[in-house]
């Protein structure tokens, strides 16, 4: 019964850790319920039995019940020590990575997760992994503290700037499982999540070999809007600090020196790497050089994105590429 009145009360378990941790959780829950109810019943019963009654005068007494006191000292101590051992043994599982685990790198920054697989395959926020094989994530943050948490896998680990931390788990079920940032990291903390896709090994291999790669336009949009924040100046609104990039590609652009140029790939690339060279009329040269920050792939993606902001037929004419 994982649902009660149509909403979940028991989380999905999809890793070997769920099988190990859940029994302890439910045992502790049972113990807590029994003790709480027991103590509360004890109070209610004694409050009733020893209630103040007219004509009854029980003198105040310093009770001594050494056996009782020893019992309620020794049993909680043993229970506490038992829990300590159980918890420590479980934790040992959490830190001992089995041999042959799939190695995946994760970089966290406000407010996204960048994931890179062994073969160089990259993804953002999501994680694709095969079922039935241990996976080890090696993680670092570029700014503040973050935390990589997948409730269905029962794993969670702080991600720290300037030092590597890691976690591992072995998924036992295929499916899509939500992942959350669990260490408060600023404005969009609650949106810094993604999905862990656990796939059959065959499907995973296909995916890894190049399956649904991120399209260049999408990668460019990400650079433009999120990673580089170009959008903060190129807002597309009149009066913004940077020119509107809609309907730019393939069109003539008037420059500050009075001349004019057609906005082709070459001009766009130059305007990204060394923007001050040929400034658009009425704009001031505020934009920094990105020559040292971007590799060729990034620039290509950005250009693909800027192209996608322009009507299709122009793109076709200028590049000869098939329509997207």
């Amino acid at each position: 019964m994982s649902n009660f009145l149509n909403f979940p009360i028991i989380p999905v378990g999809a890793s070997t850790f769920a099988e190990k941790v859940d029994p302890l959780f439910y045992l502790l829950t049972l113990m807590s319920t029994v003790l709480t109810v027991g103590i509360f019943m004890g109070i209610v019963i004694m409050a009733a039995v020893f209630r103040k009654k007219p004509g009854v005068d029980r003198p105040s007494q310093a009770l001594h019940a050494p056996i009782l006191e020893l019992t309620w000292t020794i049993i909680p101590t043993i229970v506490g020590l038992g829990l300590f051992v159980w918890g420590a043994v479980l934790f040992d599982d959490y830190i001992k990575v089995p041999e042959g685990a799939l190695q995946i790198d994760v970089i966290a920054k406000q407010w996204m997760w960048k994931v890179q697989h062994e073969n160089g395959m990259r993804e953002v926020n999501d994680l694709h992994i095969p079922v039935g094989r241990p996976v080890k994530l090696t993680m670092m943050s570029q700014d503040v503290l973050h935390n990589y948490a997948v409730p269905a896998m029962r794993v969670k680990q702080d991600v720290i700037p300037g030092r590597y931390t890691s976690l591992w788990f072995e998924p036992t079920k295929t499916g899509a499982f939500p992942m959350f940032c669990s260490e408060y990291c600023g404005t969009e903390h609650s949106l810094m999540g993604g999905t862990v896709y656990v796939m059959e090994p065959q499907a995973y291999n296909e995916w890894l070999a190049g399956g649904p790669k991120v399209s260049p336009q999408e990668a460019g949009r990400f650079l433009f809007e999120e990673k580089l924040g170009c959008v903060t100046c190129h807002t597309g609104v009149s009066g913004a600090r940077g020119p509107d990039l809609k309907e730019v590609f393939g069109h003539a652009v008037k420059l500050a020196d009075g001349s004019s140029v057609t906005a082709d790939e070459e001009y766009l690339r130059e305007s990204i790497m060394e923007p001050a060279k040929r400034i658009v009329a009425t704009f001031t040269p505020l934009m920094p050089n990105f020559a040292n920050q971007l590799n060729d792939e990034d620039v290509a993606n950005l250009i693909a994105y800027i192209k996608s902001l322009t009507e299709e037929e122009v793109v076709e004419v200028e590049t000869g590429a098939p329509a997207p």
Partner: protein
Amino acid sequence: MAVVADRQIIHETEIRPRHYLNVNHSFWSWFFTTDHKRIAMLYLGTITVFFLMGGVFALLFRLELMTPEGDLFQADTYNRFFTLHGVLMIFFFLVPSIPATLGNFLLPIMVGCRDLAFPKVNLASYWIFVFAGMFGVGMLASGGVDTGWTFYAPLSTHYSNTSVFMAAMAAFFAGFASILTGVNFIVTVHKMRAPGLTWFRLPLFVWAQYATGIIMMLGTPVIAITLFLVALERVWGVGIFDPAHGGDPVLFQHMFWFYSHPAVYIMILPGFGVISEVIACFSRNKIFGYHFIAFSSLAIAVLGFFVWGHHMFIAGQSVYTGVVFSLITMLVAVPSAIKVFNWTATFYGGNVTLESPMLYAIGFMGLFTVGGLTGLFLAAMGMDVPLHDTYFVVAHFHYVMVGGMVMAFMAGLHFWWPKMTGRMYPEFIAKFNAVIVFLGFNATFFPQFILGWLGMPRRYHAYPEEWQVLNVMSTAGATILGFGFTLAIAYFIWSLFYGERAGNNPWGAKGLEWTIESPPTTHNFHHIPTVTEDPYNYTGREEVNVQQ
């Protein structure tokens, strides 16, 4: 003390008795008083304002959490609300709550003297608290702060654009108020006990305040240093916690929790003291295991300094360190468990009545038990991994801090209100309210245990849809809880003007405070009392309203 005792203070025999409240009405006589009772009342008024502010922020973000989308407030606003709720409630309400109000008022009376050892230091403590509060208000006025009350670096030292400096200074100065209170309590208990009042005749409330004083004195300087370093890094760029400047963010957490875990005991130990008094009184019985409860307060005060690492099992601290912290945490849980058993056993063979303070105390025992037991989940290292930083933790510490501490504070306020003001509040409404607060509390925080086990992370502005029902329950509960606290404040204020006169000892309670007038005179005792019997020497017979 003997000198003072010999020189009897002459009292006017007027028709209208002079007591500490009406002895002088001038502004100066209140705000620059050295009377521990007046300072307690000043503190009570001030922390009530902070409590209400903290409560309003809580209600606002609970409203946001009614829907899965972040639609009512922007993310930045939401983040400020939960941060302000935490900062105000922890540093400006919970830490000073019982020590600065009930402790200030009762400790000198319970040890049988006329004031605390350093009355002017006590006044200084209040004004430092107000000064800190002004930083708090300044921080609010300049847009608040959004780092979470934990001020984790490097978010706090570098990335946040909010008033972190003001917030850190507010907590920094509030700490000094706390240190002065602690020192005052320790000296008073050591040096100013009345003749015959041996250590083991002290009420357990005094033992608890004494143990709290030790933690305040030893722990608070560490948070002051930590916050100072945050300010140093934030304002002058000195690299201490931010790795980009050569610092270590995990170091911040070690320093922060070195204070902030013992601070949990600063908050809860005084509550233990209140509960011991209330349960003994309304059971009309000697407290079960007096020596154990007295010593366990001290043991908790000491051991509480060696468990801070249990906040950091998955924060990047060494595994071996984690193992040691987990073990000590399990051991420190044992004395708390035994205390609950002792309080329960105190009912045995007593003459139990269920007045409103007792109802709050019983509520405390139930909720604190749940809070303590759920702490075991988090102290077991492997179990902590899925629960860490989820709503399970939020529920756990609210069961301890609100279900434990605030319930104890309510029990204590209801118990000593007649002594402090000389007036009774409407008892029936108070009993009804105890039930309301208990139910509202559970409705608010119990669903959060389930949310936490489902994996809902803390400090989330938006969340997946399937968690909405539990969040709506929680918000509904918060509304009930808010109503309960508002009602309590309303009838307490009403009672100041219209309440029945209380008499010296409306509950038939034992203890020096019940032998003097309600409200007490400025100097508490006409003669310094000589104590000849053990505490809680209840006989079962009615002893109501013994006039001096």
